[in-house]
């Protein structure tokens, strides 16, 4: 029967595969990172020779495996539960609360952490230090900073100074009104594009600037792991929501119909947007080669307020269930040494982490890097609370409800406050 021979083929292949896998066993450590060209500063993993120096020096083979970002958390969790997880994980720092809840990660050794924290610039310290010098991983170079990006040509055409971005909310609204274009009742270009759909966490990330800009926050103690109170139903958050709502309804300088702010910005149908500057820097050359754009800190509520923006990073971490932890730390330390930092940042056009490297060319004179350096001191990382995901789910839902005109600001925030407090309490149990 033909079926029988098919069977034989299949079975042979099945049985051969584990044999092949086992046969190649020298000391190999694995590293998992998310696939993608644009985001995550993972571009260097595509270089097949990235680790050759390390492999020769320590006689360890490194296998870097790309994973799908959307299912990466699930995969890491399942793998850790099955004690089959990679030795080095390159993960989104916003996943940290979840990992810490399950005690999945091994902290950086105290001595190494101390050395790192004293050698890197302040914004990297902000991203590395999770309280009392404790580090859960090494942040990647080219960190995410949320900034305002604006279209310089469109500013000029609207009679605005292309080198002067709006600094206060009043200016922001005024500029947005001037930049909006309508045709026959429909908005063809928004002054400012908002992110209001997609994953609720993303919506909240892109709105943080407004909350922070009023002096507000989402939780009372950002460094507290368990417990605490959400600060959602506050005048600060209300003001932040109202700003955008007014721009939607009163000024008509923004619209719900431009759901992908970065794409809209790159295509010239949005004059301003606020999100990670790295994305624009990476996408603009290919998608909008003629675009002249600027970046700055997001606007604050009143003149004289201190600007605050969000910092994000990817971390090199080692899970507790990893099988080759010592070698994993060796790799991470090698990859994040001062020399490597300089080499890779130069090669991949990113901003470095070590104070010493900032003093060297090309970083010292590069306008983009220096622009970022102006913004870094005002950056804060996400709170570390175990209930963070729940807080963001609640806040994201509230934002959507308000901007979609399905609930009043007060009602939506009250509901979100309830849900967020519940999430914090549940996570602390």
């Amino acid at each position, binding site marked *: 029967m033909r*079926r029988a021979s*098919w*069977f034989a083929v*299949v079975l042979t*292949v*099945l049985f051969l*595969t*584990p044999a092949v*896998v086992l046969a190649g066993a020298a000391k190999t450590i*694995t590293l998992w990172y*998310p*696939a*993608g*060209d*644009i*985001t*995550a500063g993972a571009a260097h993993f595509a270089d097949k020779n990235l680790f050759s120096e390390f492999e020769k020096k320590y006689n360890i083979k490194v*296998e870097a*495996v*790309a*994973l*799908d*970002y*959307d*299912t990466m958390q*699930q*995969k890491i*969790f*399942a*793998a850790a*539960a*099955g*004690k*089959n997880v*990679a030795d080095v994980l390159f993960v*989104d720092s916003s996943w940290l609360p979840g990992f810490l809840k399950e005690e999945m990660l091994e902290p950086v050794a105290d001595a190494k952490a101390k050395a790192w924290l004293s050698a890197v610039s302040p914004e990297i310290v902000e991203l590395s230090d999770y309280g009392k010098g404790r580090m859960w991983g090494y942040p990647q170079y080219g960190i995410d900073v949320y900034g305002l990006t604006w279209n310089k040509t469109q500013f000029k055409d609207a009679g605005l100074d292309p080198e002067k971005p709006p600094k206060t909310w009043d200016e922001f609204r005024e500029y947005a009104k001037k930049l909006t274009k309508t045709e026959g009742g429909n908005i063809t270009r928004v002054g400012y594009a908002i992110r209001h759909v*997609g994953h609720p966490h*993303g919506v909240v990330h892109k709105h943080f600037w407004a909350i922070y800009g009023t002096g507000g926050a989402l939780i009372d103690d950002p460094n507290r792991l368990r417990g605490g109170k959400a600060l959602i139903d506050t005048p600060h958050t209300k003001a932040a929501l109202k700003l955008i709502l007014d721009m939607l309804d009163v000024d008509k300088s923004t619209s719900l119909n431009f759901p*992908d702010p*970065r*794409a809209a910005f*790159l*295509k*010239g*149908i949005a004059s301003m947007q606020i999100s*990670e500057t790295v*994305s624009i820097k990476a*996408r603009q050359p*290919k*998608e*909008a*080669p003629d675009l002249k754009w600027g970046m700055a800190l997001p606007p604050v509520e009143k003149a004289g307020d201190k600007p605050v923006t969000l910092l994000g990073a990817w971390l090199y971490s080692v899970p507790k269930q990893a099988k080759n932890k010592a070698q994993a730390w060796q790799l991470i330390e090698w990859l994040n040494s001062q020399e490597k930092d300089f080499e890779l940042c130069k090669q991949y056009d990113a901003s470095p982490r070590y104070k010493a490297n900032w003093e060297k060319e090309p970083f010292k004179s590069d306008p983009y890097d220096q622009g970022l350096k102006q913004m870094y001191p005002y950056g804060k990382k996400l709170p570390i609370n175990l209930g963070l995901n729940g807080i963001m789910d609640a806040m994201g839902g509230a934002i959507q409800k308000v901007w979609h005109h399905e609930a009043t600001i007060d009602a939506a925030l009250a509901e979100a406050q309830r849900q967020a407090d519940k999430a914090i309490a549940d996570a602390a149990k």
Partner: protein
Amino acid sequence: MRTFWAPIGRLGVYIVVGGVAAIMILPFYWMVITSFMPAPDILSFPPKWFPTHVTFEHFVVAFAKAPWLSYYWNSLVVAVGSVSCSLLFGLFAGYAFAVYRFPLQNLFFLLILGTLMVPVQVTSVALYIQLSKIGWVDTFLGILAPNFASAFGVFMLRQGIKQIPVDVIEAARIDGAGEMRIVLTIIAPLIKTTVATVAMILFLGSWNDFLWPVIIINSAGLRTLPVGIALFKDPYGNINYGPLMAATLISTAPMLIAYVVSQKYMIRGIAMTGLKG
């Protein structure tokens, strides 16, 4: 049945069928056209129906970025393994449920059906833990583990076999055929269409299966097509549509061709046996 539509008006039918077909095919049109459009065109506003110029750059990127032959091979091995096992086991199980009466019959049937009722998203973790204890993680056996049989297959084949008159089976038994022989040489040919339909759906299901393979596969060399294509996505929704659509096209086109070919085979098969179903 053949002249069923005559009273309604053939032309009307053609218009409706054709119109709906055009709508059905719209997403494919967009997928194909995007793979050949330069990047600024894809995001242009107002959107373009036709590219300003045809470019193959996305295909070049897609081909360079991924080991397509390896992906095809892995997907093929998994699909063939899974479908052949499911058909074989499903045929026998379907026969047993359709023809025999035995204790706990309904319980077993419900059990098999019950495997469909717990979402794979959560059971994947428990299964993963189980498989890592026997070393099947990151192997073909691991990918196949939950797919050696199919509840859908059992259910469909049972329905199909129930429609065969008992006399045919009785006659074969009187002739001295053993039960196994009956299943393989008499029943199977009689439900050809059902078997072909089940095979097609199972094959497609395996070919497009994403969630379980992505969890169980760690090595790049074991990746199946859907796992490979997912890597064309960027985090945070920064999707680079050009290469992604090219990649999807590369993976979908063979399936479409295979479907057309299989349809011709099915029709020929039915015509040859002279028996329907």
